[in-house]
């Protein structure tokens, strides 16, 4: 089997407009969750979210901008970073074989929202002609392919909160098997629009705003956790066959060692210990990594009642006594839940944690929950000099359990 290097990183996320800035925020334990502007929050009971603080308008010529939903704007910015970070300078023929594998749960939610507001709300018959092209879930991946001339497989994976992890894992499988040499893989999501936020609120899965400090609203693994906080953003990594990367002297930012995927068949939202544990075990098996080799788990850790207790039990089931010395943290406590982009942002955070030998904390963990009894690195980052291997968990509505295993790089 061929090995897969991670040679480029890109991320625009709450807390940082590039991977380094994002990681600095996470390592400082700072939350990017905020009260949302009134234009979004006016009719929400829980007016909080995690926004990307980037003027994306400045990144595109005006005619192009008019055709891009925010989700595609964020994806394009993150993709440019990843390509630059990998120093990926390919001739047109080589570019025509590069694949794009992108996860997105809701696609161009803003374009859909705006179209409905015009048609149903304002009763207008003039719907923006670009609406379909902006709203389609595959738009971000398509625009990345167009901008860079990447003409290999261009695939969008939509499996809710596991979308990005699945996109990265499926790209890994292609490279490992020899079907591709280079791929750009990750996820993008831009759900902070009124109609979509309201629908999430109706699902009863969203945290209420913390009365004292909105930034502290997402409390994974804490006894007083009350739900997830939605975030927007995009992250992509360049995956490359190991020898291909070495031959061209590419920076090795990590190695993607394994990928585990399975599906719960019990309930559309309720997670199971069996399913999550099976995905972790499959991932470790595919990586050929023993439980004792893993030092850090970037948890799915949504902050919902159901997930965090189940995930704790699943980690215990797979790791056994090795669970006692694992560092586990949920960076969602700070950058929010990026849904179909979550797995990508969290893989970037995980690779940088390994590089920096610094585990970002689980923020807002003040009140312990007896059901959540692992070491969650509460509230402050921790130096862990000897950790080389980590896993990143993504578990989704619809039952998709996806886990990625990675090893520390040299750049």
């Amino acid at each position, binding site marked *: 089997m061929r090995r897969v290097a991670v040679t480029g990183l890109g991320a625009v996320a709450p807390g940082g407009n590039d991977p380094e800035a994002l990681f600095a925020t996470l390592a400082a334990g700072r939350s990017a969750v905020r009260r949302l502007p009134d234009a979004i929050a006016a009719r929400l009971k829980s007016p909080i979210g995690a926004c990307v603080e980037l003027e994306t308008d400045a990144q595109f010529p*005006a*005619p192009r901008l008019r055709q891009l939903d925010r989700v595609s704007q964020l994806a394009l910015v993150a993709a440019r970073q990843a390509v630059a970070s990998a120093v990926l300078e390919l001739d047109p023929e080589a570019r025509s074989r590069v694949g794009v594998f992108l996860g997105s749960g809701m696609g161009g939610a803003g374009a859909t929202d705006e179209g409905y507001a015009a048609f149903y709300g304002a009763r207008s018959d*003039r719907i*923006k*002609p670009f609406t379909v092209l902006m709203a389609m879930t595959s738009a971000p991946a398509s625009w990345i392919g167009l901008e860079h001339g990447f003409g290999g497989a261009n695939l969008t994976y939509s499996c809710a909160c596991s979308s990005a992890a699945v996109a990265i894992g499926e790209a890994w499988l292609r490279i490992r098997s020899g079907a591709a040499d280079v791929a750009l893989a990750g996820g993008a999501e831009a759900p902070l629009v009124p109609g979509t936020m309201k629908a999430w609120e109706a699902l009863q899965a969203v945290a209420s705003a913390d009365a004292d400090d909105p930034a502290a609203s997402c409390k994974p693994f804490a006894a007083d956790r009350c739900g997830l906080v939605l975030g927007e953003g995009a992250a992509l990594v360049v995956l490359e066959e190991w020898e291909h990367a070495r031959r061209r002297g590419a920076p090795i930012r990590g190695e993607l060692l394994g990928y585990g995927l399975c599906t719960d068949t019990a309930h559309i939202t309720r997670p199971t210990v069996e399913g999550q544990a099976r995905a972790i075990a499959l991932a470790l098996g595919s990586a050929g990594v023993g439980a004792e080799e893993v030092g850090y788990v970037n948890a799915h850790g949504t902050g919902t009642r159901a997930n965090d207790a189940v995930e704790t039990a699943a980690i215990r089931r797979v790791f056994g006594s090795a669970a006692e010395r694992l560092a586990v943290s949920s960076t969602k406590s700070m950058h929010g839940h990026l849904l179909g982009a979550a797995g990508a942002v969290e893989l970037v955070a995980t690779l940088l944690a390994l590089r920096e030998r610094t585990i970002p904390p689980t923020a807002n963990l003040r009140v312990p929950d007896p059901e959540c009894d692992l070491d969650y690195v509460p509230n402050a980052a921790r130096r862990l000099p000897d950790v080389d291997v980590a896993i990143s968990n993504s578990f989704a509505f619809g039952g998709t359990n996806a886990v990625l295993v990675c090893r520390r790089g040299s750049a």
Partner: protein
Amino acid sequence: MTTTVFEDLREILMKDYELPGERLTRETPLEEIDLDSLAAMEILFSLEERYHVSIEDTDPTPFATLGEIADYVDRLVARSGAS
């Protein structure tokens, strides 16, 4: 009348599409300023709103130049004024 519609069209293209005014004459081919058929439709919608007219059910003939878009809206305005 034609001048007014055309001037509005130029204004939209300069503002929303950041096109330099000197490139925008009645004879400018849409292709030359990278306006595809969807972009032309979007611009037509903006003009419709300004002039309170609506595109007829039948698709307009594909436009080749900026002048043809202006003339099309002009005809709609004239017809709505006549009725």
